[in-house]
């Protein structure tokens, strides 16, 4: 299997659609009422140093992805165990996101359809894309990002007549610990989830700049999410916002231009589906990649079909109802995801720096010996 490389523009598209994915319709936890956009700004600021850590990993291990790094740094046994953790994390995340979509379609769009049907359709599409290779995903993501951006901008413009600016007041009156809780929530979901992209780092060109990809995609995606949060806040107000499962959907349903452009929320859902599709595909790719690396398979393509099906089934039985899903996504996830998003990568980075330094010093001290590692 030849190495699949995707240029920077496509990586950014994948990353942006990945980050905005579920937040386009689910929103983020809104305990801080009308200061939730401030919490998101803080979350972006928090995420930027983390992006720099991830980018540094790419410099330390050019051309390798997360699993290779783990196995190299922590050795065969421990490294493989950590890889299994990440396989589970990516699988779980993909199932979660797919379930978001299933709940959405069951609640507002296709209420009589059993949840498995739309999830299966999207899941099959994701399996096809992953099987075709990450280059295909990159190319589609680039086009889909353009399309989504146009739709989002149009929706923003159409909703301007319904903005009630007094919903933003009073500014900064919420207690600070609520804003902190929201920041932690926004940080883990969705900004730091880009750790999944580490599992696909082998696709970024070895000479390329992972820093540029990660930082710019965080900023772009963050901008989009803040724009959408502000729109929802201005249209709905903080009180109703906290009671809704899908705030963007309700906000868009209020758009009414001259009595002609109304009830477009169904079409607006298309943005949700495209971003979600990219997110699930990336999660599936990383999962299969992980399985291939752990079991030393010839190619990740061998397991795509089975892993995809398992992900779809997992998304069906992982929650019994939407309230469990909401509780998990808003309250539990920020703690559960921290080890995967922050702890392990930072430990990996520190260990890798130490090893690199030791390697360099040994290289300098004994120039005739072969350098260790690859």
């Amino acid at each position, binding site marked *: 299997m030849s190495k699949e490389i995707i240029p920077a523009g496509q990586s950014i598209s994948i990353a942006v659609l990945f980050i905005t994915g579920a937040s386009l319709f689910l929103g983020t936890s809104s305990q801080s009422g009308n200061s939730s956009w401030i919490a998101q700004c803080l979350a972006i600021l928090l995420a930027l140093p983390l992006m720099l850590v991830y980018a540094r990993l790419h410099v330390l291990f050019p051309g390798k992805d997360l699993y290779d790094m783990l196995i190299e740094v922590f050795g065969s046994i421990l490294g493989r165990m950590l890889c299994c953790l990440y396989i589970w994390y990516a699988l779980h995340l993909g199932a979660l996101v797919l379930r978001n979509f299933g709940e959405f379609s069951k609640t507002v769009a296709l209420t009589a359809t059993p949840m498995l049907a739309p999830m299966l359709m999207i899941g*099959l599409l994701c399996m096809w894309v992953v099987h075709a290779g990450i280059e295909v995903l990159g190319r589609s993501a680039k086009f889909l990002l353009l399309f989504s951006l146009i739709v989002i901008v149009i929706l923003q413009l159409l909703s301007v007549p319904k903005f009630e600016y007094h919903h933003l007041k009073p500014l900064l009156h919420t207690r600070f610990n609520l804003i902190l809780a929201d920041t932690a929530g926004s940080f883990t979901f969705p900004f730091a989830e880009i750790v999944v992209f580490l599992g696909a780092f082998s696709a970024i060109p070895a000479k390329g700049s992972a820093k540029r990809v990660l930082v710019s995609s965080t900023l772009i995606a963050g901008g989009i999410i803040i724009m959408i949060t502000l729109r929802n806040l201005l249209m709905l107000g903080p009180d109703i916002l906290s009671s809704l499962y899908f705030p963007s959907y309700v906000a868009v349903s*209020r758009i009414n231009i001259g009595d002609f452009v109304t009830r477009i929320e169904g079409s607006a859902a298309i943005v949700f589906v495209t971003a979600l599709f990219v997110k699930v595909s990336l999660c599936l790719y990383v999962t299969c990649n992980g399985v291939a690396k752990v079991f030393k398979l010839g190619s990740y393509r061998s397991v795509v079909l089975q892993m995809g099906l398992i992900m779809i089934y997992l998304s069906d039985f992982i929650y019994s109802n939407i309230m469990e899903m909401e509780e998990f996504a808003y309250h539990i996830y920020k703690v559960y995801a921290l080890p995967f998003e922050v702890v392990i990568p930072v430990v990996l980075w520190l260990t890798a720096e130490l090893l690199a330094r030791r390697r360099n010093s040994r290289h300098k001290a004994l120039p005739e010996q072969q350098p260790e590692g690859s």
Partner: protein
Amino acid sequence: MRSLLRRCTSLIALLLLLSLGLTGCWNYAEVDDMAIVAGVAIDKNEDGELLLTAEVVDTGGSADKAQAGYKMVSLSGDTMFEIVRNMISMTGKKLFWSHAKAIIISEEAAREGLVKVIDWYSRDTETRSDVFIFVSGEKTAREVLNLNSTTEAILSFELAQMMRDERYTNTAPTVEIWDFIDKLETSGINATAPIIHIHRKNGEESERVVGTAVFVKDRMVGKLSGDETKTMLIVKNVLKGGVLAVDDKRGNPAYSLEIISNQTKLKHQMVDGKLQIDIRTVTKTALDEVMTPDGFLKDETLQDIEQRAAEQLQADILALIHKMQQEYDADIFGFGESLYENQPKLWDKVKDRWPEVFAGLEVSVKSKVTIQSSAKTSRAIRLGD
């Protein structure tokens, strides 16, 4: 050759499979199998149960009728959803709510509390939240809905059209359900809803929307007349049009000012431990009617009329606020909400006892009315001989 055959078969298989998935539906229902609900009236009957009357559009009507026919279906039960589902036994079709435009609630049901009636409507996915909500000024709500038998038109759609044109008269607020629920949930503002009356004249009946129903929490506690409603809309800064009738020097109604725009600003202050609200209104109008032939440019100038209009407006506003403070303790103007938005620290101190604080508010009003034009003619109609 073999590979081409394989490719063709796999393509056809793929197309067939795709056609299964691309239809995008799991089941379907014909329009004829659904009963489209245009409006619904909610009453309480003698047993204390809810009585729902739905105005259903008759899709089976003959093709030569210019308008769609309608049918009335009435049923009682304990909970809204139960009644709605049981109605299938009466219409033979499942009710389709997405086109509903009006909900009329009887005063009795409104006085008991609206949450139990509205929760189903806002939670269900088929019902939309942009329906207009009304309170019936008659004894029951279904009388109003039954007016469609005399007007031969679907009443709910007419009511919706009336609400859209309401910005010209402004004698009743236009309240959609999401707006109503929003005001219920927000502390610092009380909900209101327009009232429908039946206007009987010469044996003909027609619906008339005028006046407001005032709610405290979710119970109706009082009513406002059409003029008071206009004043309320001015204070809430949502007035978009309407008429200000001004008396002349002798107190007889003489001038009509058409309101072009209105801006109201509120300012809150804490003076000696008592909350004070300063209301400033600036109203731009046009002189649209002069009823006396000898006023205007002879007895008084435009400034006099403006002055008198402003004083009248101030008096009306003060009277309305005092009525709200003394009779109902209902802050329908949103003073609490604007206090929260502008001075949250002050709001924190008083938010738990807002109704009492509202009753003890000191209010000062300053109005300014400017007449921008006098429409087509520059003077009153002079009576020659």
